[in-house]
């Protein structure tokens, strides 16, 4: 069988301010008809550039195909994309090759209706009259399971949710029945349940139409779910290619092995009650740690019926007409030396809960107790003192450090504020902290931009540790990091916990990471905890429908355990905004096992 796509020796360069840069060098692989090939790699691996080259879209970003052949088996006969005319390429794009992109929120033109954007491709490639093109657009929207397709055609993109928009983009790409669909990180910006819907949809369309799929991703679990064959890339070159089973079972290249090892696999902790460090090949297996104290020990941090609402003001008089119920009647207890993970999808209130604990946002009602003391209404000096005991690590390592301050200064700042150390002693403490988070002391006088994302996150940890806190709130602290770096930072955090008896409130959307690092888990949905309990219990025996849906949506980094993603219509997500007088019901729980409670 001849290949649909045959890439041979592809080399792509970009002109930048610092001179020409080679982004992709000597890349070769093939895609057979009806096959899904996943190109996987970390940031800067050249995977996106490769896919854009196949559409010759690199040219628009200042890139150029410098060398190589990109044979595509078009309907009219094979041709070389690298040398085809612009007119030929326009005839291929959107017609024989469809493409979908990462950011559904910006993938559609905000000032045109959905209908107009769908119709113009059809009219261009299929010569359809307006009415016929519209009818076909309705069919396509139906095919991607968008409810009320006729109405959607006259809507604007901002009226649709992110998942729905990505379906529209897919429908547009499918409009002319392409022989190849290129999907460039199509689910990276989406929540896990919506990712599951989109992955299921792409897979179904592929089976129904027989098209081939070139799927670009950084996520090994998505690869395991989707791929027939895998191309692993790093630094602009192909590291390894092979069938998905072989890649996962017997990776040949060291890099692939390292990448796979660092990826947590959902379910692998099923019979292990305590958290375990991440696997890092080459690094020694960390010694067994003393197990954490039991969860029923006196809690260091306790929330009682915490509620945080943000007023929505409208009109001249800025009257409160509605409230965003970000956090609604949330209660939990966190014991010393343990990790409680808050999990849920974007907008569920997990970050606001974390920020409320530090009083970075003011809770509307409820109680926050730290070490048995009510800190909800502390102000001024007392509030500042509280902040010695609770520290925070933020998600974005590029934004959480002051770009104009030396690292040593930033780590020293909390100690200076609290007067815990000064002069020579302060300098020593800072240097010790750098050792503690495994950063070289030569970094002391550097600025944040000189560091990688993982290193910055270590600085943020050092800063949080500097005043000897009891609790650290880690808000998506490793989500922006590549998987190998993520494993190292997580291991550092677990080590610190064992050594210092720290408690973590670990806020994350990544169920596989949460399974590995937590003692306890609380699942949040629409501002409430819907299920809470020991990690092993919640993962093994999820009771709330939402927890079940969440867990069933997570792809597993193991091709032998592919999930069956249901093909339902996209359901609208209920809104957390309620009119001003709305009285929210209380959160009532049923205990299904010791410490394992489910919202009724």
């Amino acid at each position, binding site marked *: 069988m001849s290949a649909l796509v045959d890439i041979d020796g592809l080399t792509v360069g970009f002109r930048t301010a610092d001179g020409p840069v080679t982004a992709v060098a000597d890349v070769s692989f093939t895609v057979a008809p009806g096959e899904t090939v996943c190109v996987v790699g970390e940031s800067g691996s050249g995977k996106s550039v490769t896919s854009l080259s196949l*559409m010759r*879209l690199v040219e*628009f970003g200042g890139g150029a195909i410098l060398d190589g052949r990109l044979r595509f088996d078009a309907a009219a006969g094979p041709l070389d994309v690298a040398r085809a005319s612009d007119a030929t*390429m*326009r*005839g*291929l*794009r*959107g*017609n024989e090759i*469809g*493409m979908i*992109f*990462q*950011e559904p929120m*910006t*993938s*559609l*033109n*905000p*000032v*045109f209706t959905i209908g107009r954007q769908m119709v*113009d*491709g059809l009219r*261009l*490639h299929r010569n359809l009259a307006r009415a016929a093109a519209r009818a076909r657009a309705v069919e396509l929207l139906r095919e991607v399971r968008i409810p009320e397709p006729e109405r959607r055609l006259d809507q*604007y993109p*901002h009226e649709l949710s992110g998942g729905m928009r990505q379906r529209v*983009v897919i429908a*547009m*790409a499918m409009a002319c029945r392409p022989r190849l669909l290129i999907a460039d990180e199509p689910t990276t910006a989406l929540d896990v349940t919506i990712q599951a819907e989109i992955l299921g949809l792409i897979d179904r369309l592929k089976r129904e139409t027989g098209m081939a799929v070139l799927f670009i991703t950084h996520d090994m679990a998505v690869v395991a779910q989707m791929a027939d064959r895998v191309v692993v890339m790093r630094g602009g070159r192909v590291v390894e290619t092979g069938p998905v089973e072989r890649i996962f079972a017997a990776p040949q290249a060291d890099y692939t092995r390292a990448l796979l090892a660092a990826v947590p696999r959902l379910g692998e902790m099923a019979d292990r009650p305590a958290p375990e460090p991440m696997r890092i090949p080459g690094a020694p297996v960390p010694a067994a740690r003393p197990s954490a104290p039991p969860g029923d020990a006196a809690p260091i941090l306790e929330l009682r019926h915490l509620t945080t609402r943000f007023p929505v003001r409208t*009109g*001249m008089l800025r009257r409160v007409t509605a409230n965003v119920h970000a956090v609604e009647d949330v209660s939990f207890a966190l014991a010393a030396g343990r990790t409680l993970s808050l999990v849920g999808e974007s907008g569920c209130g997990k970050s606001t809960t974390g920020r409320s604990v530090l009083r970075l946002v003011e809770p509307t009602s409820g109680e926050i107790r730290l070490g048995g003391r009510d800190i909800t209404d502390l102000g001024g000096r007392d509030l500042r003192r509280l902040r010695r005991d609770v520290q925070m690590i933020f998600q974005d390592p590029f934004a959480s450090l002051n770009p104009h301050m030396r690292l040593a200064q930033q780590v020293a700042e909390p100690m200076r504020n609290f007067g815990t150390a000064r002069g020579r002693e302060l300098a020593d403490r800072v240097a010790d902290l750098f050792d503690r988070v495994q950063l070289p002391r030569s970094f002391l006088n550097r600025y944040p931009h000189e560091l990688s994302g993982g290193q910055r996150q270590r600085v943020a940890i050092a800063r949080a540790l500097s005043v000897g806190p009891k609790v650290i709130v880690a808000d998506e602290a490793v989500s922006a990091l590549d998987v190998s770096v993520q494993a190292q930072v997580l291991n550092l955090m677990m080590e610190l916990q064992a050594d210092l008896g720290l408690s973590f409130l670990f806020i994350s959307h990544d169920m596989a990471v949460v399974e590995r690092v937590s003692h306890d888990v609380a699942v949040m949905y629409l501002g409430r905890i819907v299920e809470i309990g020991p990690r092993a219990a919640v993962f093994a025996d999820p009771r709330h429908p939402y927890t079940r849906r969440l867990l069933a949506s997570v792809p597993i980094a193991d091709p032998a355990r592919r999930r069956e993603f249901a093909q339902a219509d996209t359901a609208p997500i209920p809104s957390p905004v309620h009119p001003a007088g709305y009285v929210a019901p209380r959160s009532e729980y049923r205990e299904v096992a010791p410490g394992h409670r489910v919202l009724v």
Partner: protein
Amino acid sequence: MAYLGNRLLSLVLTLFLISMVTFAVTHILPGDVAMIIMGTQSNPEALAGLRQSLGLNEPLLVQYGRWIGGMVTGDWGTSLVFREPIGPLIAQKAAASALIVAMSMSIALAAAIPLGVWAAVHRDRWQDGAASTTALLGVSLPDFFWGIMLILLFARVLGWLPSSGFVHPADDFGGAIRHAFLPSLALGLGLMAHLTRMTRATMTGILQQEFIRVARAKGLSERTVIWRYALANAIGPVVTVAGLQVGYLFGSIIVIESLFNFTGMGWLTYQALLNRDIPLIQATVFTIAAVVMIVSLLVDLLYTVIDPRVRLG
């Protein structure tokens, strides 16, 4: 509708604030208003008389109250220089200015949008450099300097267009346009340069957005991608900026109308300022600020028509 109501209410509040600023600038600053009007050399009796007739001996709040009351009820007082009621005077001059403001805005937009798009499409290449440098030169020259150069070229050397005076469109439409052309061009050049830079910046941002890549991936031609998909997104911001520049234009007309002896609002304001005709200064300054506010409201409303995202308000 609630949106419109809110905006109107907000406009009234802002107009009120504007009136206070206007009054404050002419009254609270150090110096005696009567002295400002008549000069320091004038005789004490005349000063006292003027104070009396302008009501300057009363508390400031009372003076302000009487002034704002007059403005609201349509009694705008009498100009000290022109010895005419201010209301009709302003109405007549404002119409003249409306002509050159509209003409200069049309000239500026018609040139700036294509030029800005062209520069953005050829970003960082010679076309961009040429367009950007031209625009930079445009914003760097004082508009009265443009005016002088235009007078020199078109009126003196070529003798194509009149360099001075105003003709009412109702009397002689062609003459009105010809008289308004050079001042409009002088106003429009600087504005054009500014809007070109703005269009270029907006288009550059839009061309990097994902939906542009999606449009290309559909096989649409570059012409469609740039002039339909991208430009449709740029129009809103560009029109908004153009609307905000009406304020800048109203500053510039003072200079340009004086230069071209074009008897509009700018000329009137200048006469008021030169002669320290405080009642006329207050009225013209307030009117100009009020017009600027109203135009910006209209632009906002226009934006809700252009951009569907703000349609629901």
